[in-house]
């Protein structure tokens, strides 16, 4: 029996609707709390091509809501684990694993290739980038976002019946200033909320692809799981909102959306210094050179852990949230990050660029470091 028989039997669906799903190509940006349930239902429904974009790795604190991953996946790339899990369950779809983050440089090329985008990201810069790229390329997108016990979901850049297409900028013209809106890493979240909102995103995607039902086009839906209240609002084009969108792909590529590059494992000495000063107890500087290797570094609070011993003794570093490895030129410290990733999945690991020979290193820039 066809695995889609139950949905083919549904009114306004039929073989035609199923064919539309199997010919569709959907990009899911972010394989986290929203992305996991969305991906599961898109794959279960038989969407033909699913692109999974996420440069992040699984950490233990993800597991309460990112239901495609388990303990054994900690430290692995989310997009790779997700693609593998889904292809084991539903081998009849094509999964494209994109293990990096969306940037102004790569956005157009990736989005151009798909029919529909699901914005399952966890930050404003990427949300505005998706909005602008989709508007320029004429792709509809389904956006989901959460805050504590509340979720919001909307379908943008899709005209429907007599309603014109709206963009996220018709609702919120510019990204909010600074870090005024806390994310769920700071405020906490129960897994079921992104579970529900991500599932609704998949539902909207399926409606749009199958041309079935009323998509949330030109609307935004708020849901509060604490009070069980929901609220649907109409959005209309805001005069002048299109002027905040880049005029073409070239302008999009060169615009600074302020996307934090979280895959970047290299940090400068200046950043390292800032971090060490701001929260001494949770960050640590680790020298992975051999004992006695010159130039000597006499910084307080620096641990020495030669690369050859790192796998045996790395457990010592478990109590630190952020670990900054350095060596002579920044090569062995990169190896240290790679070696320690599986052993310390809950810590942020960095390699200090250029090592002690870098002009900004504490050895070279003694005056600057000595002042503190």
């Amino acid at each position: 029996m066809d695995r889609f028989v139950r949905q083919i039997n549904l009114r306004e669906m039929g073989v035609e609707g199923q064919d539309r799903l199997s010919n569709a190509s959907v990009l899911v940006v972010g394989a986290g709390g929203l992305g996991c349930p969305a991906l599961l239902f898109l794959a279960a429904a038989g969407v033909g091509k699913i692109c999974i974009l996420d440069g992040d790795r699984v950490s233990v604190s993800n597991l309460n809501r990112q239901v495609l991953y388990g303990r054994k996946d900690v430290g692995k790339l989310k997009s790779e684990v997700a693609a593998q899990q889904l292809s084991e369950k539903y081998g009849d779809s094509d999964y494209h694993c994109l293990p990096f983050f969306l940037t102004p440089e790569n956005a157009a090329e990736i989005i151009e290739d798909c029919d529909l985008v699901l914005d399952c990201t966890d930050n404003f810069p990427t949300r505005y980038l998706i909005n602008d790229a989709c508007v320029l390329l004429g792709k509809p997108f389904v956006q989901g976002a959460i805050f504590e016990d509340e979720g919001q979901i909307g379908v943008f850049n899709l005209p429907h019946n007599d309603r014109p297409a709206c963009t996220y900028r018709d609702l919120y013209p510019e990204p909010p200033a600074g870090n005024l809106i806390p994310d769920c890493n700071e405020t906490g979240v129960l897994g079921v909320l992104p579970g529900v909102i991500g599932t609704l995103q998949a539902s909207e995607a399926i409606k749009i692809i199958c041309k079935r039902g009323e998509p949330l086009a030109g609307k935004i839906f708020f849901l509060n799981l604490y009070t069980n209240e929901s609220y649907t609002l109409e959005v209309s084009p805001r005069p002048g909102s299109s002027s905040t969108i880049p005029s073409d792909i070239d302008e999009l590529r060169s615009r600074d959306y302020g996307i934090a590059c979280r895959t970047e494992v290299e940090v400068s000495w200046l950043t390292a210094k800032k971090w060490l000063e701001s929260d001494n107890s949770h960050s640590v500087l680790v020298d992975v050179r051999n004992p006695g290797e010159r130039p000597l570094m006499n910084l307080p609070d620096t641990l020495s852990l030669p690369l050859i011993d790192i796998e045996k003794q790395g457990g010592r570093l478990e109590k630190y949230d952020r670990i900054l490895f350095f060596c002579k030129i920044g090569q062995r410290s990169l190896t240290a990050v790679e070696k320690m990733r599986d052993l310390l999945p809950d810590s942020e690991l960095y390699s200090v660029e250029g090592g002690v020979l870098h002009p900004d290193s504490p050895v070279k820039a003694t005056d600057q470091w000595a002042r503190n």
Partner: protein
Amino acid sequence: MSIKIKAFGLIAEKMDAREIRVDQTKTTAELKALLHERYPALEKLDFAIAVDRRIVNDNTPLEPGAEVALLPPFSGG
């Protein structure tokens, strides 16, 4: 007449209420000024305003008995 105000997300948290009633103001701009005075924390926050479940742009007249919603953007995922 009074206006019903529904608050969402961080706005509700800063107001410490999901729903309040205030005296009728003529426009959304007047209402916003009143809210900023009563809840100074709102001044720093971005939010969209809906009147009777429609997002409004800029200043909009408020009919007696209108329902206003204050909707901040969410970023979590």
